[in-house]
């Protein structure tokens, strides 16, 4: 009993983890608490404690720019996560066919991930620039009616962001899923072959369901990236044309810095936090239930 007490309050361990205590409590609890608190105030450039109830939230949801941002993040998130997963999975499956030059292909698929999203944004800004990029190049090659300038039009600029996002991130999905594929017992493949199950069927019916963990990892990584998408938008479109590619992350930063409207900015930030909290709570419950089931089964 006494030993366990000493173990619990071992002083050097507490001292050694002071930074962690400060960050966990100071930043991720108190900091977020203040953000939420300020979302109920009329703070402008500096925080005040003049509480105005839900007024900031009402103004937020009345702001067309915010509504567009929210729409955009859903569209962008859905598109880019789906495309990224499908493309990443295809890459992983094709990479798993005992191909030659696997390391070379892997390096090529993965290197954009090493680059800043600012760089990615600029690269694609140029590649899609009507006067400089693909459109101009193909016209110069003699296809004079070719028209491809997604960044100029409000309808298509989001797709361009999705393409850039895939370019930067699908290599990682590929790497994670490939590791998942390689982690599957070789005997499973053999058993399926002896059973006479076609390769594609083995993938769909047996192997893919076995890779739940890898898929979940890739998915979570994608989601975190989507919610935080800021650099890419700034570098590639600056939120434009107009406000066509504005995102909540961009919107909030603009409110805090340029438009000096902290109260409403914090309301936006709180709205960004909400889905994360819901998903975390949901997965927490799932995890807890699974653990209980496992204990019950054992």
């Amino acid at each position, binding site marked *: 009993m006494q030993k366990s007490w000493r173990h619990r309050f071992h002083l050097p361990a507490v001292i050694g983890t002071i930074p962690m205590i400060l960050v966990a409590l100071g930043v991720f609890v108190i*900091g977020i608490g203040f*953000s939420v608190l300020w979302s109920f105030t009329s703070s402008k450039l500096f925080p005040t404690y003049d509480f105005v109830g839900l007024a900031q939230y009402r103004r937020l949801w009345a702001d067309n720019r915010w509504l567009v941002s929210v729409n955009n993040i859903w569209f962008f998130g859905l598109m880019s996560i789906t495309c990224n997963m499908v493309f990443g999975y295809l890459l992983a499956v094709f990479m798993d066919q005992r191909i030659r030059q696997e390391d070379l292909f892997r390096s090529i698929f993965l290197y954009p991930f090493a680059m800043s999203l600012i760089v990615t944004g600029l690269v694609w800004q140029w590649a899609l620039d009507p006067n400089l990029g693909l459109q101009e190049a193909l016209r110069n090659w003699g296809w004079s009616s070719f028209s491809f300038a997604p960044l100029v039009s409000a309808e298509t600029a989001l797709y361009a962001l999705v393409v850039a996002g895939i*370019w930067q991130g699908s290599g990682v999905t590929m790497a994670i899923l490939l590791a998942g594929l390689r982690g599957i017992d*070789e005997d499973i493949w053999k058993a399926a072959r002896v059973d006479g199950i076609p390769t594609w069927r083995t993938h769909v019916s047996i192997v893919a369901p076995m890779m739940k963990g890898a898929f979940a990892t890739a998915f979570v990584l994608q989601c975190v990236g989507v919610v935080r998408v800021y650099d890419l938008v700034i570098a590639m479109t600056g939120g434009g044309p107009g406000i066509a590619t504005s995102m909540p992350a961009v919107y909030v930063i603009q409110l805090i810095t340029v438009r000096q409207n902290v109260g409403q900015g914090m309301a936006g930030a709180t709205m960004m936090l909400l889905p994360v909290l819901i998903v975390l709570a949901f997965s927490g419950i799932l995890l807890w239930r699974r653990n209980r089931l496992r204990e019950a089964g054992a």
Partner: protein
Amino acid sequence: MTVGPITAIQPPREAPDQAGVAPFGPKPRRISAGRIGIYAFLVVAALFFLIPVYIMIVTSLKGMPEIRLGHLFNPPGEPTFQPWADAWLHACTGRDCNGLSPGFYNSVKITLPSVIISIICASINGYALTFWPYKGANLLFGLLVFGAFVPYQVVIYPLIIGLSSVGLFASLPGIIIVHTIFGMPILTLLFRNFYAAIPVELFKAARVDGAGFWRIFFYIMLPMSVPITVVAVILQVTGIWNDFLFGIVFAGRSNWPMTVQLNNIVNTTTGVREYNVNMAATILTAAVPLLIYFISGRWFVRGIAAGAVKG
């Protein structure tokens, strides 16, 4: 004993004459359509990943007149490194025309201490969480992991206020603190998982020998932590070097890192857009993490995989 899911590693052999010959030896393998399809897909995918950077490299080596001709894919007619020199020394951000070099040095000044401090903190955290869990430690860890998922926008403003109140906002120490904070969740997770895989008997043996918290850490755990530290360094260097948001908010104008400078050079140029200079500047900014990527090779992949194992 290694059996592929689809085919063995043997190179395809010459098929024996089919006419009336009993099957003998390896199954004759035609270069199947499927095989061609696989390589076609991979090559097209590779082109998708390579072309944008190819364009950047060739354009950065061209003069402006040649660029205006619009032959995007053509290699430079008269290669020139002038755009690279301009990008490094003379490119303008607003009124200043000192090129990217100040940004480069700022990035170095930000990245080095941030990487070192964040890794020291995280390794101690991981060690303490694994071997000396005090009451509430796991709750703290849970909060930290939660922090890995939180949108930065929720935390940025309180941090601005907090750092301002101690006079560190818009300063080098300020940005270093911010990077340490936001690196901590993932790095702590990384180190905790690493230490959790170490046999606990090692720790017990050291305790029986009378070693305490710090002695065990410095003499036993730290020397064993080289591989995970390499992964952490790769993760942090690329992450911090590539950061834009924290740099622009917390570093202050005089400490703006390379990414911020790059964005300013490219996206705020008035007058004629010097594409060649801009692209050279972009390549220069990407150079450090790319260098790390190509040197570290498989370690980089391991870093991603390790960083991805959340929960």
